[in-house]
C-alpha cells in the first residue's frame, strides 16, 4: 500500500502542523511515513507545500504524484492538480475557494466553518483538515485524538481541537468512494524523526554540551534542537554575533574540555574557514554541521542542494586532516554525528557533518534507535602528565590531550607554527616535523571511514553511485529498476572524506553513473582525484528540489 498526500498553501497557513500531526498519525497507525517540505524564503504568503508519503514498507524519499491534495488556497489547486492521480482527491475549503471544475476528483469541505463552529477560532482549521483526512482514510480517530491532546498543553484548547477534528472526521468518513485506506495496522516501536533532530539528538548523545551558532537555514534546526533540550541536558547554546565568533567560541570551549559544535549552512561555513584552519593547526577537536542549500552566495535559502562537497573538503588555508561525513538519512545522521564527535576527539581534528535542507527538514519513520552500544570516547588525560607537551610528536601523530586547569601542568597551543610544547617557533626543522605529525593523523583516519553500501544485483551492468541524502531516492529507484529487470546496482557513500575506495576499486570496471544534487558532478571529481576512476555519466539536479525515485528511474532509462 502506498499513499501520497500533499498539503499546499501559503506560508503561515499551518501546512507544517497538518503534516506533522498526520505523519505522527500514520506512524502510530503502523505505517511508514516520509514527509518532505517545500517552502519559500518568506514568513507569510507565497506557495509552500509538504508531501506526506505513507507506505506499509519502509520508505526514505518523497515521490512524484499525489493521491490526496489538501489545498489551503486556490493556487495550490492550480499548481498541483495535474499531478493528482486518477483515483485521487483534492480536498479544499468549499466556502473559501471558488473552484469551477467539479468532478469526482474534488472534495469540498467547509474546513474553516467547521473550525469556527467547533473551536471558535479559524486557527483550528488544521484540526478540521486532519479530521477530514483521517475520516477519508478510515483511520482510527482515537489515535488522532491522542496526538492532539498531546499537542496542546492547555486541555481546554485540546478538547476544542478534538471536537473540530471529529467534525471533520465525520465528513471525511462520509465519502466512501475513496480508494486509499489507512486503518490501524499494528503497535510498533518506530520513531518519526527529521534529519535536523537526528543530528541534534546525536550530538546530545555524543556528549555535546556547547553549541554556538549564528542562525542560518537549514543549520538553525540543530541549534533549535539543542536549545530546546538545553535545560534537561545541561547544554549551553549561545547565539554568536557572527559565524566567525561561533567557531572560535567552539574552539575555546573544546580546548577547555567540552564537546562542542557549530551548525550553519554553506555561507556561514564560508566565514568559518579561517577557524577551521585554526582547529587543524591547534589540533582542537570540533564538529561542524553544514546543512547545504543552493548557492552561490545567498542562493535559495530554503531549498536543497549538494553543492558544498569540494568546498568543505578543501576549505582552509594550509594542510591538515579532517573527517567529512554526509549522512544518507536521518538514522545515519544520528550515528554519524556521534562518530563525528568521536573521531574529532580521537584525532584532534575538525569533523564536518554535511547534510542538506532536504535531509534536515524531512521526517521519516525509522526503527528504534539502539543507544546501549554507543561508545563515547574522549581520549583526554585528566591526570597530570610529567613534562606535558600539548603537541608531542608520537608514532601515530596523535599527542596526549590534557585540559587547561589540570593541576601542575600547562596546556599551550598556537595558531603560528609551534614546537611540541606549543610555543611559537621559527625553527624550520621543527616546522617540517610538525607538518608530518599532523598529516600522519590523516593517514590513520583512513582506517576509520566506512565503505559505501552496495545494494543490487551481484553482477550489475550499471552501478549508480551517490552520496549523502540522495540515498532514499536512489535506493528506491534501484529497487524499481531491478524489479523491471534492469541489471543495476547502487554504491552509496555516507563517509566521503577521506574517501573510502575499496568498493570503488572493486567496481571500477563497471559502467558507473554518478547521481548528484549539483551541477558540476563534485563527487565524481572527488572520486577521480582520489582514485583516478573517471565517472563520465552523470545524473545531476540543481533546481533546489530533491531527487525522487521516479525521476532517477526515468533518467537512468534514458541513458541505459
Amino acid at each position: 500500500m502506498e499513499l501520497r498526500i500533499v498539503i499546499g498553501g501559503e506560508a503561515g497557513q499551518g501546512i507544517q502542523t497538518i503534516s506533522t500531526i498526520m505523519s505522527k498519525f500514520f506512524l502510530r497507525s503502523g505505517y511508514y511515513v516520509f514527509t518532505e517540505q517545500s517552502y519559500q524564503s518568506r514568513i507569510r504568503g507565497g506557495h509552500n507545500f509538504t508531501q506526506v508519503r505513507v507506505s506499509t514498507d519502509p520508505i526514505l524519499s518523497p515521490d512524484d504524484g499525489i493521491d490526496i491534495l489538501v489545498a489551503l488556497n486556490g493556487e495550490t489547486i492550480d499548481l498541483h492538480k495535474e499531478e493528482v492521480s486518477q483515483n485521487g482527491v483534492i480536498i479544499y475549503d468549499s466556502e473559501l475557494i471558488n473552484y469551477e471544475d467539479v468532478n469526482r476528483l474534488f472534495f469540498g469541505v467547509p474546513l474553516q466553518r467547521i473550525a469556527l463552529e467547533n473551536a471558535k477560532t479559524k486557527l483550528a482549521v488544521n484540526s478540521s483538515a486532519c479530521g477530514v483526512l483521517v475520516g477519508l482514510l478510515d483511520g482510527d480517530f482515537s489515535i488522532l485524538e491522542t496526538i492532539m491532546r498531546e499537542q496542546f498543553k492547555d486541555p481546554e484548547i485540546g478538547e476544542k481541537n478534538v471536537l473540530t477534528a471529529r467534525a471533520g472526521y465525520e465528513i471525511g468518513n462520509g465519502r466512501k468512494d475513496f480508494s486509499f485506506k489507512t486503518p490501524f495496522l499494528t503497535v510498533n516501536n518506530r520513531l518519526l524523526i527529521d534529519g535536523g533532530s537526528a543530528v541534534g539528538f546525536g550530538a546530545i548523545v555524543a556528549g555535546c554540551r556547547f553549541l554556538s551558532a549564528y542562525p542560518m537555514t537549514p543549520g538553525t534546526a540543530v541549534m533549535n534542537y539543542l536549545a530546546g533540550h538545553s535545560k534537561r541536558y545541561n547544554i549551553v547554546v549561545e547565539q554568536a554575533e557572527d559565524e566567525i565568533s561561533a567557531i572560535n567560541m567552539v574552539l575555546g570551549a573544546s580546548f577547555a574540555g567540552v564537546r562542542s559544535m557549530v551548525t550553519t549552512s554553506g555561507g556561514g561555513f564560508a566565514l568559518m574557514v579561517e577557524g577551521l584552519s585554526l582547529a587543524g593547526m591547534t589540533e582542537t577537536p570540533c564538529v561542524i554541521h553544514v546543512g547545504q542549500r543552493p548557492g552561490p552566495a545567498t542562493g535559495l535559502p530554503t531549498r536543497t542542494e549538494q553543492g558544498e562537497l569540494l568546498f568543505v573538503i578543501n576549505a582552509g588555508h594550509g594542510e591538515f586532516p579532517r573527517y567529512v561525513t554526509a549522512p544518507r538519512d536521518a538514522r545515519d545522521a544520528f550515528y554519524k554525528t556521534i562518530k563525528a564527535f568521536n573521531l574529532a576527539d580521537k584525532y584532534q581534528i575538525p569533523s564536518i557533518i554535511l547534510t542538506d535542507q532536504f535531509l534536515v527538514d524531512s521526517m521519516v519513520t525509522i526503527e528504534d534507535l539502539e543507544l546501549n552500544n554507543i561508545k563515547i570516547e574522549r581520549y583526554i588525560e585528566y591526570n597530570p602528565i610529567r613534562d606535558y607537551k600539548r603537541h608531542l610528536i608520537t608514532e601515530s601523530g596523535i599527542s596526549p590531550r590534557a585540559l587547561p586547569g589540570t593541576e601542575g601542568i600547562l596546556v599551550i597551543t598556537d595558531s603560528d607554527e609551534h614546537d611540541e610544547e606549543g610555543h611559537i617557533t621559527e625553527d624550520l626543522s621543527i616546522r617540517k616535523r610538525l607538518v608530518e605529525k599532523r598529516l600522519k593523523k590523516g593517514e590513520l583516519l583512513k582506517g576509520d571511514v566506512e565503505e559505501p553500501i552496495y545494494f543490487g544485483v551481484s553482477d550489475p551492468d550499471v552501478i549508480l553511485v551517490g552520496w549523502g541524502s540522495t540515498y532514499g531516492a536512489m535506493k528506491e529507484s534501484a529497487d524499481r529498476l531491478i524489479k523491471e529487470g534492469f541489471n543495476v546496482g547502487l554504491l552509496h557513500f555516507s563517509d566521503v572524506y577521506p574517501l573510502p575506495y575499496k568498493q570503488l576499486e572493486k567496481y571500477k570496471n563497471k559502467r558507473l553513473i554518478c547521481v548528484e544534487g549539483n551541477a558540476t558532478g563534485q563527487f565524481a571529481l572527488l572520486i577521480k582525484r582520489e582514485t583516478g576512476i573517471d565517472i563520465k555519466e552523470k545524473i545531476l539536479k540543481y533546481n533546489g528540489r530533491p531527487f525522487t525515485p521516479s525521476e532517477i528511474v526515468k533518467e537512468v532509462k534514458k541513458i541505459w
Partner: protein
Amino acid sequence: MVDIKTYDNDQIPAWCPGCGNFSILKSLKQALAELDIPPDRVLMVSGIGQAAKAPHYFRCNLFNGLHGRDISVAVGAKIANHNLIVIAESGDGNTYGEGGNHFIHNIRRNVNIKVFVHNNQIYGLTKGQASPTSDLGMKTKVQIDGVLSPPFNPIAVAIALNASFVARSFSGEPEHLVAMMKSAITHKGFALLDILQPCVTFNRINTFKWYKDRVYKLDDSYDPTDRISAFEKALEWGDRIPIGVIYVNNRPTYEEQLSQLKDSPLFKIPITGIDYSDILKEFR
C-alpha cells in the same frame, strides 16, 4: 603567595628593545602573583600581533589563536570551565580592528573574562600601518596622506555598550598598571583594560614621552559608576589623558545567569550513562 618568578618561562621575547610591551608583561606577572593565582589556573588567550605574542612569555596555559578572534575563544573557554582565570591579551589592531564585532558584542554578553589591550596606536607586527586608534594625520606606507578617519575610542564605545568594567593605564606607569590589572581581574564580569603602549619602532608620534606628558591618574573624587560623566571622561584625549578605572557597572555575568553552570563547570558534567528515554518519546 605565588612568587612572580613562577610566571617566568624560558621563551625570549621577540620584541624590539625599548618596546612598551616589556613592562606590560612584567606588570601582569606581578599582578597575578600579588593576587596569588597559580599559573595552572590561568588561561591566556591571544590573537596575532606583537602584543599577542606576550602570553608566550608567561608560564601559564595558552591558546594563541587567530588575529582578532581571541575574545571569542576566551569566552568559549570560560563557559567550558569557569574555574579558569581567562585573560585575552592582544593589540589594538587585533581587538578593535579585525575583532571589532566580538569586542562590542562580548561587552554586552558580559562573560567574566579580562581583555587587556596593548594599545600602541599602530599595527606593529605588519610593519607600521595605521590601526583603528591611530591619530588623525599619521602617515604610513599605506596612509600616505595620513590617517583620515578619527581614532576609535574604545573607552567611549565600551561605555556606550554599558560595559561592566572599563579602565585605562599606561605601560610607563607600572604601579598603576599592576593596580588596574588587579582590579580588572578581581572584578566580576567582562573587564576591558586599554593599555597605552609606546611602539618605539613604528609610532613616532605617540612616544613614551608623548604619553608621559599627557597621562594623569584619576583620583578618588572621580565616580566611575556615573555613565554620563564616564562618557565625558572617555572623550578626554589630547593634552590630558585620564588613566584609571573610568566606568564600572556591576551587572550579572553571563555565567551566573545560566542554570546549566550552577552545579559544576560544564566540562566536568558527565556525558555518559544518561537516560534519553524522554527524547525517544518525543519521536514516537
